[in-house]
């Protein structure tokens, strides 16, 4: 974990409300592991105090990129920043995905919208290429499809409005695939909580291991404020653990879904 001021190299629109920002972060980029995140202080934001957490999308040498959606004041302000402007970054943070071992499980990735961003490094580093199931409301919510294909992955797209790929929810497509009951697979999921919950259910139903990247309102990002907690099973019930420190990635069997609203 390092705190450093980073300089923006580029910050460009991807599709619709999605942007990609690339920064030079020589102390942080080389440490990044799949599924980890960075906590950004967007310096022009004056009246909103907190940092914003973002999955690490791609790393190349001493640069690091983030694929984000403009969903509020912080990301709006970020989207208007340009090359040579500075951000303050703490990272890499959190406990990411366990990359499958050579000859180990075949990964099936399940992404909702910009959840896809959290998977790029995993797809890159996994010795077994698998299938990425990508879902979104509309065609513009389907991100970096070609980049995953060029890593040698199969990509299956689902949109809720049927404007691209299969029509419906990503978990329906996934469920159909899991029904083939091919051995040696493992699920990895990142997206909205209802999707994660559905993936957790499918994992239980088909008796597959699954790692889920969970999301909660975050304060400090390094484990002190206890804002971003999720209920995780213990020997005698459950306790709140921090998505920023013990997570964001948890084994789906550990999540106490009955305590998630």
């Amino acid at each position, binding site marked *: 974990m390092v705190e450093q001021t980073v300089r923006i190299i580029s910050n460009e629109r991807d599709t619709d409300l999605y942007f990609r920002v690339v920064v030079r972060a020589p102390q942080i980029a080389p440490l990044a592991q799949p599924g980890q995140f960075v906590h950004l*202080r967007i310096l022009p934001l004056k009246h909103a*105090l*907190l940092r914003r957490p973002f999955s690490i999308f791609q790393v190349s040498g001493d640069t690091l990129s983030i694929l984000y959606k403009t969903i509020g004041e912080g990301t709006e302000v970020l989207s208007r920043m340009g090359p040579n402007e500075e951000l303050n970054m703490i990272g890499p943070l959190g406990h990411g995905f366990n990359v499958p071992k050579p000859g180990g499980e075949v990964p099936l990735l399940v992404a909702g919208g910009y959840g896809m961003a959290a998977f790029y490094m995993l797809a890159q580093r996994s010795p077994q290429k698998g299938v990425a199931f990508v879902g979104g409301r509309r065609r513009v919510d389907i991100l970096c499809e070609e980049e995953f294909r060029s890593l040698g992955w199969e990509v299956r797209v689902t949109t809720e409005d049927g404007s691209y790929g299969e029509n419906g929810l990503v978990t329906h497509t996934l469920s159909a695939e899991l029904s083939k009951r091919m051995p040696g697979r493992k699920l990895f999921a990142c997206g909205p909580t209802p999707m994660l919950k559905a993936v957790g259910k499918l994992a239980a139903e088909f008796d597959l291991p699954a790692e889920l990247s969970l999301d909660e309102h975050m304060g400090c990002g390094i484990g*002190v404020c206890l804002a971003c*907690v999720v209920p995780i099973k213990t020997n005698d019930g459950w306790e709140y653990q921090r998505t920023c*420190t013990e997570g964001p990635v948890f084994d789906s069997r550990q999540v106490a879904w009955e305590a998630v*609203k």
Partner: protein
Amino acid sequence: MNLSVKIGSLTLQNPVTVASGTFGYGVEYSQLVDLNQLGAVVVKGIRLGPVRGNPTPRTVEVTSGLINAIGLQGPGVDGFIRKYWPFLKELKVPTIINIWGTTVEEYAEVARRFDALGGVGALELNVSCPNIKEGGAQFGTDVKLLSQVVAACRKATKLPLITKMSPNVVSIAPYAQAAEAAGSDALSIMNSFPAMAIDIETRKPRLANVTGGLTGPCIKPIAIKLVWEAAKAVKIPIIGMGGIQTASDAIEFFLAGATAIAVGTANFYEPQTALQIIEGLRQYLEENNIQDIHELIGRVQIGN
């Protein structure tokens, strides 16, 4: 130049501490901040047993502030001693342990346990958390209960006692005086302000707990006024806190009457804040040719 101050029998190398609940148990920040530069590390509130805390969402950002309702999640006395004390006891700077309970007896028992531990710098009595149903603010907003809690802890330990005051009172003076009379060595002024935010789309409160405690720069002017009022009412030192982000903010608190200060919410977004403030204080004293931080304490000029 002297930056050193005393809180009861405890000497701090400088007057810059951190606010309970914003700095975990110190270890979390140790990769980013040189903890040994601080005046003291103040840990999150601990009661006798472990506490699960409130459901999420636990925080909501508001203009220049943050409302939280964490609910004092924590490991309890034994968990703290097992998990965090081995790290904290090796620090060169004192650890101040924030404690709470749901009864006067529990406060005293926790105080006794930490007294027996040895090596603790001071205890801060949290009688002012707005986010738990039992304990917390009920003790800080009733002069009689406040006196009982402080007196019981005073009996239980020789460690310096700091009472962390609730801002949610008509006048802070009688509470400050009650804590002083019952044996408190210092006051922390103050805890967060009860607050609420609503999502106008869903019409639901932003926090699962409905209400929470407001902190951050937006509360600073109110905190300054409370420190100023309490400083006039008591002789014991005051640790001032509320929205401090810069050395200038800290100096306002000293002028209002604080002997030390605590950085709170700013730790969440800028972990270096406390260290930057120590450096800024040194610069300010040097530029103004002031030899001792005590020359600032309570020196607000009212009238001519």
